[in-house]
């Protein structure tokens, strides 16, 4: 089972869980699995066309999936997937 690290702003949609395990074998399937289990995550991860939002980065290991095979990037049992949305500070 691959591990997905959920960023703090999105943990309120995953019952405050920081790490989730998924059975999926690609990034697209991982996102599907996550949004199926936690429907409120969907609008934060995907746009109206079902594409990963451009202010959300997904890294497999240390690499951006945009430099790998995007949504088709393979996910193995020991893969660590990080979801990292843009943050702007928020301490005004």
């Amino acid at each position, binding site marked *: 089972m691959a591990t997905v690290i959920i960023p703090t702003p999105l943990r309120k949609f995953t019952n405050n869980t920081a790490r989730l395990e998924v059975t999926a074998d690609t990034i697209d399937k991982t996102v599907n699995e996550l949004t199926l289990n936690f429907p409120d995550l969907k609008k934060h991860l995907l746009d109206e066309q079902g594409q990963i939002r451009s202010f959300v980065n997904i890294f497999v290991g240390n690499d951006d999936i945009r430099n790998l095979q995007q949504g088709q990037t393979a996910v193995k049992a020991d893969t660590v997937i990080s979801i990292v949305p843009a943050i702007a*500070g928020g301490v005004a």
Partner: protein
Amino acid sequence: MSNNNSVTFSKEELARYNRHIIIPEFGLEAQQKLKAAKVLIVGSGGLGSPALLYLAAAGVGTIGIVDFDVVDDSNLQRQVLFGVEAIGKPKVEEAKKRLEALNPHIKIILHNTQLTSQNALEILKDYDVVADGTDNFPTRYLVNDATVLLGIPNVFASIFQFEGQVSVFNQRNEKGELGPNYRDLYPTPPPPGLVPSCAEGGVLGVLPGIIGSLQALETIKVITGVGDTLNGRFYHFDALTFESRTFNISRRDDNPINGKNPTITALIDYEQFCGVKAVEKPIKEITPEELYNLQVKGEAYQIIDVREQSEYDIVNIGAELIPLSTVSANADRISRDQKVIVHCKMGGRSAKAIRELEEKFGFDNLYNLKGGILAWIDQVQPELTKY
């Protein structure tokens, strides 16, 4: 950052910087580069405070500060540049006093203004490095684009609640190859409303201390050439789990400012780009005075507070608490046959709640308390606690 050989130090400076100079990898040469350098810090808040203190202490010769804000007592939880006596005074001036007391051998230049598309290039052009510690997306993209257009490295740091991010953008490596910038990492910002705002989000005070110190570290490395900077890498820190990760990032062909076919050749309207100016349907409002008059007349009304429980516990005006994230689930608790006044801290979240309830459930009797509970306290009940 040139002509470093002509940079000399007084006896006092040599004594002050001794612990730098005796590091073999650093030495007098790196210290000369620091003294010759001009660094601009955008924002003197949570990130800017530690970054400014360490860069001033380290002996960066010229430090510019951009900020238009005044010190507020709610800043002191994290903005360690300021003390109680600074409350109500301009941040840049208070910062200058503190930094000059720390290091009289450096020059501080103040820009007591908001960075805009009109003034950014003029302000940034005289600096060697920019360190961006602002708190909003429009300014992030403005600083990014201005540094790309001017060819200046941008040391980026950002925080939210328990997370921190650091990178070095727009830096040329030893081979002269240009590294990625913010638009390579995040092509577009989140639409307003999807990410909680500052008043809702919050931040643990020590986090900007950690991340702002890393920003100072990377700034020193960019100036001196000592070590490997975060050029082409993106550092991420989670204070809750104490996990750090450093991701690889690279330039994108479709980057609109310096990809293969750039479409941005000058600074744009960043408020519009970030959707901040999006036209929203107006909602009905009620001022604190009008609400007070309702109470005095004994008119029937319901009042809803959409803040969080923790805020309610600090101060409340006897409203029913229904936090913003739960308003739809509690729509049946909201009256339809009398005026319903909705409030939060300053009026932003209550406006969101009203729009959500009007759109989903067709309410037409909702009124936003103008200025929120803070305005109520100012105008009606000054004896209550402000936060």
